């Protein structure tokens, strides 16, 4: 079974390099075949994993005397759940990209050089999957950096000054996180444990554990764009929309959460000081998002702040896990799963604005209801992100809040919960105003998009509703 997972990330990593040389239709087909095979292998792996009773599989593929486990695969409910999101969402976003990256795109017509975009994206998918199934800290570090590199590649894709600047910013910030966080973790592993396997880290002494944990928190927070490292994400929205969707919905940002979840899973119990640092930064992040929502005019920027807040919620769940709630870990992965598809839908709908209307400025867009898929896609995506059922984020938020017993440990938990609810209420206020002016209003222009784009959006909408039911069996087995 582990071969399936190994192949599912080796194939895109290899094919991604080849895609740099291709362009036009050939690039389309080569990319689609790669991504479809990747997803099929992964889904097949998930199926086998579930039908074999969800037993954790850990295989060390490369070990050395002084470094212990250098390379391996770790297939457990957490990595399988996250990998499933990454591969399925990745496939859908890439399907959409085939039509989106075309000369018909009004804001960013693409005549040539598609191959380069596909190459970075496929590498991105491969690196993300490889990251998810990693079992050693060195692997986490390597693929963390490849993700940052791929992110630089897609953000700078359009080549404008702003794009290049944002791309360097994204790269430098996340690279800084890797330097602080993962280098420390690897260093401690080499010098103190003589083993880089994740399993070894639970035996660290308390003070070293705290240092490693705080270092990883910094790494994770740079990746997830949490305070004080948040500003690269709203800037990175200059990336082509399918890439933004992937960055926000299923990969980059969520991998920060996954990284920290992994360390909490393997290092618990974690010294209490770790919780206070996390809680402080999370509360600051939540406050910033609440304050920033009303001032956003650009559709993708609004969504970027929503991503920061939603991943903040995943960290709220992880903070309760640090306090000893095993279900906090589950709630975090559950929210990650539920959030992915609806955020993807939101971004792909925003993509239709630039594709068909040539603008992302929300003030200039009116009468979307004339094209019901786009109009309702935007309405439901925003409502779903605010946590309105039947969309999955509602259950994700309930899952986080149900760790209320953590309040007995620290009242900061109550503050984070209150801000969680306030955040969704403010987001609803802002986005409902936008829905009223953009969707339910008179307008002349119709949003013309291709059938493939429509199909992808409808599938994402359905997935956003059924996500909790898919995720639940896997998430319920997550634990330490």
């Amino acid at each position, binding site marked *: 079974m582990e071969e399936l997972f190994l192949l599912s990330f080796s194939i895109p990593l290899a094919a991604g390099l080849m895609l740099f040389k291709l362009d036009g239709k050939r690039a389309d087909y080569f990319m689609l075949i790669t991504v479809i095979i990747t997803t099929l292998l992964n889904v097949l792996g998930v199926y086998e994993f579930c039908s074999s009773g969800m037993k954790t599989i850990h295989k060390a593929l490369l070990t050395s005397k002084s470094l212990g486990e250098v390379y391996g695969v770790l297939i457990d409910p957490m990595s399988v759940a996250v990998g499933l999101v990454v591969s399925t969402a990745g496939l859908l976003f890439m399907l959409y990209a085939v039509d989106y990256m075309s000369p018909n795109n009004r804001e960013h017509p693409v005549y040539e050089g598609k191959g380069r975009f596909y190459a970075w994206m496929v590498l991105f998918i491969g690196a993300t999957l490889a990251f998810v199934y990693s079992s050693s800290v060195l692997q986490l570090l390597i693929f963390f950096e490849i993700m940052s590199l791929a992110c630089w590649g897609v953000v700078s894709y359009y080549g404008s000054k702003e794009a290049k600047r944002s791309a360097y910013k994204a790269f430098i910030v996340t690279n800084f996180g890797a330097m602080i966080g993962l280098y420390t973790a690897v260093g401690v592993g080499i010098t103190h444990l003589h083993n880089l396997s994740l399993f070894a880290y639970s035996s660290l002494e308390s003070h070293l554990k705290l240092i490693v944990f705080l270092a990883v928190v910094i790494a994770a927070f740079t990746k997830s764009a949490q305070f004080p490292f948040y500003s690269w994400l709203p800037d990175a929205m200059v990336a082509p929309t399918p890439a933004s969707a992937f960055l926000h919905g299923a990969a980059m940002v969520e991998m920060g959460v996954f990284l920290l979840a992994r360390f909490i899973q393997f290092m618990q119990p974690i010294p209490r000081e770790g919780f206070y640092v996390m809680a402080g930064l999370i509360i600051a992040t939540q406050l910033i998002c609440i304050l920033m929502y009303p001032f956003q005019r650009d559709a993708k920027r609004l969504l970027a702040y929503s991503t920061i807040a939603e991943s903040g919620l995943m960290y709220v769940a992880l903070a309760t896990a640090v306090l000893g709630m095993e*279900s906090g870990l*589950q*709630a975090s992965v*559950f929210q990650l799963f539920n959030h992915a598809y609806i955020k993807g839908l939101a971004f792909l709908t925003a993509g239709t604005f630039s594709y068909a209307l040539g603008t992302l400025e929300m003030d200039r867009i009116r009468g979307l*209801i*004339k094209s*019901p898929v786009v*109009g309702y896609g935007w309405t439901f995506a925003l*409502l779903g992100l*605010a*946590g*309105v*059922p*039947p969309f999955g984020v*509602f*259950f994700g*938020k*309930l*899952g986080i*809040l*149900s*760790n*209320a*017993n953590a309040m007995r440990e620290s009242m900061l938990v109550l503050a984070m*919960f209150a801000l969680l*609810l*306030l955040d*969704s*209420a403010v987001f*609803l*206020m802002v986005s*409902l*105003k936008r829905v*009223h002016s953009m969707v*339910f*209003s*008179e307008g002349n222009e119709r949003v013309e998009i291709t059938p493939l784009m429509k199909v992808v959006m409808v599938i994402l909408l359905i997935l956003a509703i059924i996500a909790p039911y898919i995720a*639940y069996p896997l*998430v*319920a087995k997550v634990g330490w």
Partner: protein
Amino acid sequence: MFEVTLTFSLDRISVLFALNVAILGIAALIGSLKYMGIYRFKPKIPYYPTLFIFIAAMLLIPMVQDWLSFLFLWEIMTLASYFLIIYDWPEENVKRAGWKYFVTMHLFDTSPLMLAVTLYYAGQGTFNFGPISEYKTAIVALFLFGFAAKAGLFPLHFWLPDAHPAAPSPVSALMSGAMVELGIYGSIRVLDAVNWSVPGWIAWLVGAMAVLSMLSAIITYPHQTDVKRLFAWSTIDNIGWMYAFLLAGLLGVAGIEKGVSYYVLAHGLAKGAAFLTTGALLYVFGTRNLDEMKGMINSDQTTAGLLIASIFALEGVPPFNLFLNKVEAIKTLFQVNGWLALFVGLEWVIAFIIFLRTIHVYVISDGKPEVKRKLPVSIAIAVIILLILSLASQFVCNHVWTGW
């Protein structure tokens, strides 16, 4: 995570609430048939599917036996009602009312309920209904607050007079006659779970809010010229009555569930009839403004007759059965506080006088408003069914209550 067993069952209380939803749902569907013809444009909000989801969610809420499904259905109900409120979205004030409604609900209804439900889960380890032992006061307070926002109890009533006129009339009938009452249902369920023993401040806060609801209603009634706003305030008034029952329960009167459930059904039927009649007025005269309909009895006797009958049903004039329920409310209150009972009785009389004046000023007065369209039979039938049932609600309730 998420320990829950999904079961559906009905006890005597929930069957009356579900019956109320079912009857109003059917009446609203019949009332919609012709009524929706007044909307000339294509709003691209699918009316009947949304209405169906709205009714189905409300029907299931009294049946479920766990807080997770309850909350899920509760939110589906809110979402569906929001889309129905903004059905006429080219009107700017409709969108404004929809925004106000949804945002208020999310902030004051959804948020406290989510906290309450998850606290319950954290304490009990399951979402299934059962006695509350951990975090008791916090859970009860949060639940009651959330339900009060949905029920439109003063001072959380402010969304209600805007939302009801904005929605199509059959939807207003459902919202006023069935949806806000589910707030009462939820409160009963929570209070049952703690055996009606709550800290004194909660009981008195409920009492104060109930009294203020009635007071604000009778102060506001005379200033209303929009007929749907008038009836929306009447809902706030009647919610005050229902909470007065709950207050009596909190102060130690046993078995008030029966009185409330009876009241809810009788009020729901009358309120449904009243709102469907406003739909008839809108259809016939093309306006909701009472000033433009002065002397309507001279133009259209059927519609005017339905309006008078609905108002009598709503104000508890015998032989309409709401009379018996209002008397029951006063009797129950006498067991806990005589002054309160007197106040409620007085409020009833004042409200009746105000409504009588409304009839005299607007219905049987000089003038002859122009009839734009003939009253469709389907709307008349829907109203008449509800009025006839209003004459027999006590009997129906007794039959169900003893036989279940």
